[in-house]
């Protein structure tokens, strides 16, 4: 009796693990099946054509460009911010100030993205509108700035982990030679932590591409290829959120599944690169990889 109960429990545990893996694969399969009608009509044209449902153009090209632009710009703004905070938390010796910064970073991980978007609509957007005196303020610039603020805490924590995992013997050697903190940072910590920094950048980019609300609320959602930093743009995630109420059988509706497929592929690529190439820098128990 006991043996049967035990083997059932063991099977249950194994089943849960398999279920979790299965769901990951199932998401991909569902996206593929549902965007198949769209792909059958000619795969390449969907990435090159523009988006104009009235004329029958269902290309998600502009959306892909929009997503890539706002994420790259967000990483561009977030990188100095997060690496400086991470360096501050590692090498500066004033423990009271460092503790305060640590607490603020931890709190900012817990802030939901809705709040960032809500506040930015009523503070940042009018500011940018008045500063440049053209456009509506909802532009690539405002989206990237807020996205940078959103992904910074994640990147800060990854960088702090990599900085801390530099060998203690190196740090001790530097201390015994009389190095100042910045010298420690520049000449030993950053070169040793190169892999971790690249991993942090990639993961930040994955998070920036996948964020829906900020791109939806702040980027203006015009489905065209932008021509200046103040143009409004539509990201893949915002496209999914906007088109969801179209007629279920139409090609317009199927385009959201194609967007989901593109997003899924992109994120899987990032995760695979981080896992396989950069595994040495991030150990199994340390970060989520």
């Amino acid at each position, binding site marked *: 009796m*006991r043996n049967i*109960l*035990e083997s059932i429990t*063991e099977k*249950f*545990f194994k*089943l*849960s693990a398999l*279920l*979790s*893996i299965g*769901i*990951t694969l*199932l*998401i991909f399969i*569902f*996206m593929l*099946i*549902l965007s198949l009608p769209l792909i059958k009509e000619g795969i390449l044209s969907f990435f090159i054509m523009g988006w104009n449902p009235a004329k029958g153009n269902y290309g998600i090209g502009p959306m892909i460009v929009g997503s890539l632009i706002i994420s790259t710009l967000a990483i561009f703004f977030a990188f*100095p911010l997060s690496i*400086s*905070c991470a360096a*501050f938390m590692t090498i500066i010796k004033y423990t009271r100030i460092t503790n305060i910064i640590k607490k*603020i970073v*931890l*709190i*900012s*991980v*817990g802030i*939901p993205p*809705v709040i*960032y*978007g809500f*506040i930015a609509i*009523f503070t940042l957007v009018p500011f940018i509108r008045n500063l440049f005196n053209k456009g509506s303020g909802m532009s690539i610039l405002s989206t990237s700035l807020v996205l940078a*603020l959103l992904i910074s805490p*994640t990147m800060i924590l990854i960088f702090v*982990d990599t900085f801390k995992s530099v060998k203690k013997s190196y740090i001790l050697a530097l201390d015994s030679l009389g190095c100042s903190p*910045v010298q420690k*940072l*520049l000449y030993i910590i950053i070169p040793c932590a190169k892999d971790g920094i690249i991993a942090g950048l990639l*993961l930040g980019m994955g998070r920036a591409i*996948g964020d*829906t*609300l900020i791109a939806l*609320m702040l980027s203006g959602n015009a489905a065209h290829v932008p021509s200046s930093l103040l143009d409004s743009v539509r990201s893949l995630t915002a496209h*999914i*959120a906007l088109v*969801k109420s179209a007629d*279920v059988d139409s090609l317009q509706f199927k385009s959201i*599944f194609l967007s*989901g497929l593109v*997003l*899924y592929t992109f*994120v899987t690529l990032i995760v*695979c690169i981080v*896992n396989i190439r950069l595994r040495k820098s991030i150990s*199994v*128990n340390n970060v*989520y990889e």
Partner: protein
Amino acid sequence: MNKLVEQTIYFFIWLWTILYFILINIIIGYLTIKGSEQLSLSLIFGDVGAFDALLIKKHVLDGLFPAIVGTILLVILTICFAIPVGIGAGIYLAEYADYHTKRVVNIFFDTLSAIPSIVIGLFGLSLIIFINKYLHTRIYTGLIISSLSLAVLVLPYIVRSTELALEGIPLSTRIAALSLGATKIQNILYVLLPKSLPGILSGVLLSVGRCASDVAVIMLTGAVANAGVPRSIFDNYEALPFFIFYISSEYRNNAELMNGYSASLILLIICIFLFIISTIMGKSISKLSLIR
């Protein structure tokens, strides 16, 4: 020359850190100031008295009560779906899997935790489409599909925290019960799980915070702007973060905007509170929070 570069870099490190600190403080401070102007019972219950609304005698049309109830119901259902599967998978990873299985499964979980939340909402939508096509029942968007999708979203947190908590138990505790004659399952259920409960709980609290504040998933699978308190698990419902989202684009007068600020303040306090408690409970929580 080098000295100058070093001094500049030192200066920039201070500058960017102080800038980040100021920006986060501006966000929290601005929200607190604007949000606390309108905090009162009438914000939540509208024109209806508190007891009538709580006993669902009258419908609250212009307060936050339906949204708060919707969020609470969503969180409870999601946790019911996610905890058994999550803890089971975590126990399997920590106790039964060998190194190579762990590597493969870890790649899958990393992918699952990195998938954008709106793709998971699409998954819920596609579940509805497939169920309508191949089974002979008609399902529409509702509370249950939303909580299934949110459970998928939240699964990596629970699995990771269970795995980390179980692996953090020292060897002496692990082999004590086994040496007294307990079977592996008895060891897990009576010794290891209770000891790792704080870690598991911190993962659960983190996932509750994530459920309560996620908009992308529920936007596609059942949250609407005005639905009142849901009467069954197949109904549409309202949710607090969704309320904040649509108020930001469709507010008609200043009073509604102020309602939005107060709702944001409530959501912020809940999320930060949950996050801080889960940080206190679990030691490796700062690593887990990277999944966010």
